[in-house]
């Protein structure tokens, strides 16, 4: 922790100490003013970097190259390898290319923890503040070196000029013991990690020369040429390969583990710990075959504690406990909708249903672990929040977090599944490694990744809307229902009966709570009465399971907001149709925020949207065409999309032909990478809307491969048009990797209505469902 003393300076909340400048410290005091309060206290275990040291974040080398470090892991968002480099280079006024190294995620080599959801830190990421503090410290050094007042210095490309002289950052730091104390707060191994505090001056947006340019992502070349080291490539000396034998049902207990056929698999070994069964062998193929043989002889208790997908919404409505968890209400809720609804000339009352969905990474989860004789645990994995994983593994083994080191490698994107600390296999690798005394690599098979991972929770919502005689919404009332969204208990620890955090419950913290908070900011402030409530409950099946394992849920790309935005945006389109109004203009007419209106106008113009009410006039023929629109505010970014679809009534197949999306994220950091993110999110969103449902029976998830859980194929993608609205006056960086996946569903459902006159209020919009709907 920083100690402010007579040799130190308070730099906008940070503390600057410079040992070799003891004699001239007074001059520095003049430039920074008085020493302020000490940095807030942070909880940081050992075996990691000191987050208060500037070099833990940014290292400037004598050769003018720069290294940056972040605890947040990038699995394709391109944030750490491009946006972070741009942000740091901008704040330092150094060339982008000078940042030659990005250290990411490794718990012993990065300072701040937390997950990818926090990449842009509500507009000002940790790394930006760390760079801004470092810049001020560098200016002070330069002021001394150049004997020129700080306010008369200028910096270009990492070279400071002043008083007719110049010095590069590299020369400036050479042999100097610059010590700047970065103020941090938080708990490193908690899901949110550490936050850099204070308010260092930031470079004015009007002076940006690096942010806003389309820099390439440096890891892409490495991946394309097979030079990148993936987590899947980690091979440790003496390492054994493992395959798990997971229970038959989500609530099954182990009756007896199958015995290993040693004649066929002489080198394999079975490990049993509670209800956890694994098989290790020197080669992967032997481990796979041996695990299959052991699985065939392993007996589990029967368990049928789930309602099954066909009865899910009946179960939600009639049996689930929505009373034990406090009802959440949105900040904007105001007024009593009842009188408005009672007296309205037109009303809409409808229920919307969203299924369980899988994160479904293209590669099943895997990890390698090495529990060493001295108790040190090394984990090699692909994980969005490795510091939180460290905390979970320490808890599981009842050891201090100091003993756990997590190294992060490239891996398949998994869209939020590990943002609370585990991707699925790390804890099992640790348990097996500890049992056999050797490094162990656990690789889940495809079916395990569908059936034993967490899922995005199903939800439903009841919406009521009152319209006046002029077709304006006078009241909007919604009740959102969704089970707990974030179960970060490592599954291997649960199966083995080892310590974990509690299951989500009404008293859990904001992440592990059953409270269904309002996630979808209201954007129609022209509506005079608004009531938005969120009802939460326990995970389905968990209480009926002897292992406390039911349908474990986890946040997935645009979590919670997906489940709340689909009902709202489809209901708004339905209300527009009831009012006989154009769905896009209807939104503009009810919105008051300039940025929301601007993004709607942008998507209108880019898609060539012609105003008219829905449904479309012509509703006969073999192919019916329609269009729909949706709107969202997420992480400081305003989004709107238009989907144009073709529906074949005979088959029920919906084909999205054209997809136009506009986003105003405030400052666009990197238009090239943002465009690719948005295109990808668009495709995933169409996949969610048309295809994705994690089916389940009374015992567990029944989807098990890409045939039973299809995702969108290349032949099914539409023409995609992305409109980026750079809005520098916002002064902050909005998120761009989420949200795009959530906009498609309500726009496609509205387009189906536009094309056919029929409303589909349940996702996914599979052909059989649409066919049945159109025949009704």
């Amino acid at each position: 922790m920083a100690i402010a003393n007579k040799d130190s300076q308070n730099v906008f909340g940070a503390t600057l100490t410079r040992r070799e400048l003891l004699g001239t410290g007074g001059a520095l005091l003049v430039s920074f003013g008085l020493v302020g309060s000490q940095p807030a206290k942070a909880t940081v275990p050992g075996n990691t970097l000191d987050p208060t040291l500037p070099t833990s974040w940014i290292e400037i080398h004598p050769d003018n190259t720069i290294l940056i470090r972040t605890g947040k892991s990038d699995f394709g968002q391109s944030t750490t390898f491009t946006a972070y480099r741009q942000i740091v280079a901008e704040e330092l006024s150094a060339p982008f290319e000078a940042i030659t190294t990005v250290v990411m995620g490794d718990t012993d080599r990065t300072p701040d923890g937390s997950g990818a959801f926090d990449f842009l830190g509500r507009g000002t990421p940790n790394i930006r503040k760390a760079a801004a503090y470092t810049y001020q410290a560098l200016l002070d050094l330069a002021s001394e070196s150049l004997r020129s007042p700080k306010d008369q210095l200028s910096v270009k490309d990492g070279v400071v000029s002043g008083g007719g002289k110049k010095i590069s950052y590299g020369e400036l730091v050479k042999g100097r013991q610059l010590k700047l104390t970065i103020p941090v707060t938080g708990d490193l191994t908690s899901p949110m990690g550490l936050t850099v505090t204070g308010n260092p001056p930031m470079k004015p947006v009007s002076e940006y020369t690096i942010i806003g340019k389309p820099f390439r992502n440096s890891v892409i070349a490495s991946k394309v040429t097979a030079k990148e080291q993936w987590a899947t490539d980690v091979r440790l000396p003496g390492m054994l390969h493992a395959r798990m034998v997971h229970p038959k049902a989500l609530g099954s207990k182990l009756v007896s583990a199958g015995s290993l056929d040693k004649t066929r698999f002489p080198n394999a070994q079975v490990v049993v710990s509670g209800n956890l069964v694994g098989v290790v062998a020197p080669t992967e193929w032997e481990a796979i075959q041996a695990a299959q043989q052991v699985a065939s002889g392993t007996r589990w208790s029967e368990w049928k504690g789930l309602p099954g997908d066909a009865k899910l919404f009946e179960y939600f409505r009639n049996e689930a406990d929505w009373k034990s968890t406090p009802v959440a209400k949105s900040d904007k809720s105001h007024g009593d909708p009842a009188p408005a609804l009672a007296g309205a000339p037109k009303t809409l009352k409808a229920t919307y249903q969203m299924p369980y969905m899988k994160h479904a990474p293209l590669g099943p989860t895997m990890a390698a672990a090495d529990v060493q004789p001295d108790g040190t645990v090394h984990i090699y994995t692909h994980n969005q929040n490795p510091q939180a994983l460290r905390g979970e593994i320490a808890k599981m083994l009842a050891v201090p977090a100091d003993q756990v080191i997590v190294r992060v490698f490239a891996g398949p994107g998994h869209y939020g599944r590990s943002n609370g600390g585990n991707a699925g296999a790390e804890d099992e690798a640790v348990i097996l490694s500890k049992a056999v005394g050797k490094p162990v690599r656990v690789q889940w098979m495809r079916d395990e990744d569908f059936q034993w991972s967490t899922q995005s929770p199903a939800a439903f919502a009841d919406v009521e809307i009152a319209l006046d005689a002029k077709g304006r919404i006078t009241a909007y009332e919604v009740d959102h229902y969704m089970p707990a969204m974030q179960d970060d208990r490592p599954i291997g620890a649960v199966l083995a009966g080892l310590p974990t955090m509690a299951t989500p419950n009404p008293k859990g913290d904001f992440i592990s709570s059953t409270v269904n908070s309002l996630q979808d900011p209201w954007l129609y402030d022209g509506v005079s009465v608004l009531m938005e409530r969120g009802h939460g409950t326990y995970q389905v099946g968990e209480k009926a399971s002897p292992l406390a394992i039911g349908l474990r849920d986890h946040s997935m790309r645009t979590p919670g907001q997906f489940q709340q935005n689909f009902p709202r945006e489809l209901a708004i389109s339905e209300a527009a149709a009831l009012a006989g109004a154009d769905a896009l203009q209807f939104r503009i007419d009810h919105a008051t925020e300039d940025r929301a209106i601007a993004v709607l106008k942008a998507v209108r113009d880019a898609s060539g949207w012609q105003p008219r009410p829905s449904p479309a006039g012509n509703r006969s023929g073999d192919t019916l065409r329609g269009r729909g629109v949706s709107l969202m505010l997420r992480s400081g970014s305003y989004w709107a999309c238009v989907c144009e679809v073709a529906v074949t009534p005979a088959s029920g197949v919906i084909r999205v032909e054209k997809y136009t999306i506009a986003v105003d994220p405030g400052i666009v950091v990197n238009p090239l990478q943002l465009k690719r993110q948005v295109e990808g999110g668009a495709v995933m969103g169409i996949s969610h809307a048309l295809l994705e449902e994690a089916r389940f029976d009374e015992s567990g998830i029944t989807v098990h491969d890409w045939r039973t859980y299809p995702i969108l194929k290349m032949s099914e993608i539409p023409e995609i048009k992305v409109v980026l609205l750079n809005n520098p006056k916002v002064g902050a960086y909005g998120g761009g990797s989420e949200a795009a996946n959530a906009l498609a569903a309500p726009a496609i459902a509205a387009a189906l209505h536009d094309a056919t006159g029929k409303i589909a209020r349940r996702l996914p919009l599979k052909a059989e469902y649409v066919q049945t709907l159109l025949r009704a």
Partner: protein
Amino acid sequence: MATLTVNGVRRDVQSPADTPLLYVLRNELELSGPQFGCGLAQCGACSVLLDGKEIRSCITPLSAAGTKEVTTLEGLPARWAQQKGLSKADAGKTLHPVQQAWIEEQTPLCGFCQNGMMIKATELLEQTANPTLAQIKEAFTTSGPSPHLCRCGSYTAIIQAVQRAAAVMARGR
């Protein structure tokens, strides 16, 4: 013990004959291009070329490779250099046009599927010099045992990269 020709080099391998080629390549030969995605020939992440034809190494036993030439992602630059008769000096600094296009277009998101995507693109462009959009979609969707799947949704970027690579390959450099 079997002998396998991989990326132009004959390699002795110890794995049993029924071992899926994927594990031989990854674990014994330390070629990390092909990835384990499903083990069911349903996604394409494990693709390699076998005598120029895209196959799924996760379900192909080692014995099925026989004397055929296996090309992995690592072997694409040499494959191109050989096809074009590049000098050793040029070959050392030239990527396969498919790889180069993947970089130019900034195609990968997480990148886990892109090994198979680039292998499929190479197979396509070796057979069809200037594929139409429909031919590209057909190649990645219905030409093999399964569609090549990308969970991040990079299909648009893949199509643009294939078109870019096609233009380069048609020019011959």
